């Protein structure tokens, strides 16, 4: 049961965390998966089945755009995701929301019942 609740909690912040990883530079799927896992100490070890639908939704909403790289020699083409201006704006709003949200949740959780 705990696993299900944990998953639900994580789901709520994934879009924001993915956008954050794209804030400074474009990245492809495998890079995002590795980076989210490393940066979170293994807490956000996403599978492709979770990451890609998030990226597709962000793209549909105009917060990211993508491009396929031109492979050199035996290289495989890679799909890079780039944050848009709208995505940067969205990330700022989400960051503010997260600060308030986490502060309120922490406060409530620390309060004596």
């Amino acid at each position: 049961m705990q696993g299900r609740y944990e998953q639900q909690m994580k789901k709520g912040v994934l879009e924001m965390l993915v956008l954050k990883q794209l804030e400074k530079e474009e990245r492809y799927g495998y890079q995002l998966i590795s980076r989210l896992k490393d940066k979170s100490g293994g807490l956000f070890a996403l599978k492709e089945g979770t990451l890609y639908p998030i990226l597709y939704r962000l793209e549909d909403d105009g917060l990211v755009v993508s491009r396929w790289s031109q492979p050199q020699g035996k290289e495989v083409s890679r799909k890079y995701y780039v944050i848009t201006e709208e995505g940067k704006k969205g990330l700022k709003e989400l960051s503010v929301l997260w600060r308030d949200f986490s502060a309120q949740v922490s406060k409530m959780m620390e309060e004596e019942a």
Partner: protein
Amino acid sequence: MNQEKYVIAVLKKLKCSGSKKKEIRKELESDIAAALENGESLEEIMARMGSPASLAGEFNDNFSKEEITAFKRRKGLGIAGVIIGILVVLLLLGFYMIPKNYPMGKSGLYTEEEVTERTKTVISYFDEGDYEAIQEMCFSKSMEQAMTEEKLEEVKKLFGEDWGEFVTFGNIYLGEVVQMGKSYAVVQINATYENTGITYTLMFDKEMKLCAFYVK
């Protein structure tokens, strides 16, 4: 399981559009290549990604509502399309099997004179009791076997013990029937005998072989 089989097994279980599947295929192949470059073995990558069913299930759980709805609608339309297709085939088959009547001469295979003459010849053999001659005119072995002296004499007796001599032919109706792609000439002709009147119905194929012989 090799990489290609693994990816295809995932794609088969995805509930999304064909274009999205293509996109996912490219992304998975690209990711696997990147992971291999990063030192992971294919077995490790597949173990990390999970079984094809669980990876596809994860995709399906995370697709947007719009994607899932569009997929269900397309699937529904696909099933409806198959059902409509089957119905159309059945209707066409039914139409193909139903005999269709046309005026004599439409197919160009028969002429009124030829069919009338052939009909009168069969009836004259019947009157004369030359059943072997009728058998030789039959289109198939099974019909030949049905047109034996014994059986034809039995038929004659059904309409009276003594018909008397043939007097004349009366009204004649000619036509063509097309069934299951085959064309037949159909003739109905009245014949008057001294003691009775008989209506014959005969059918001929394009070789003018006898296909049906009815007496009433």
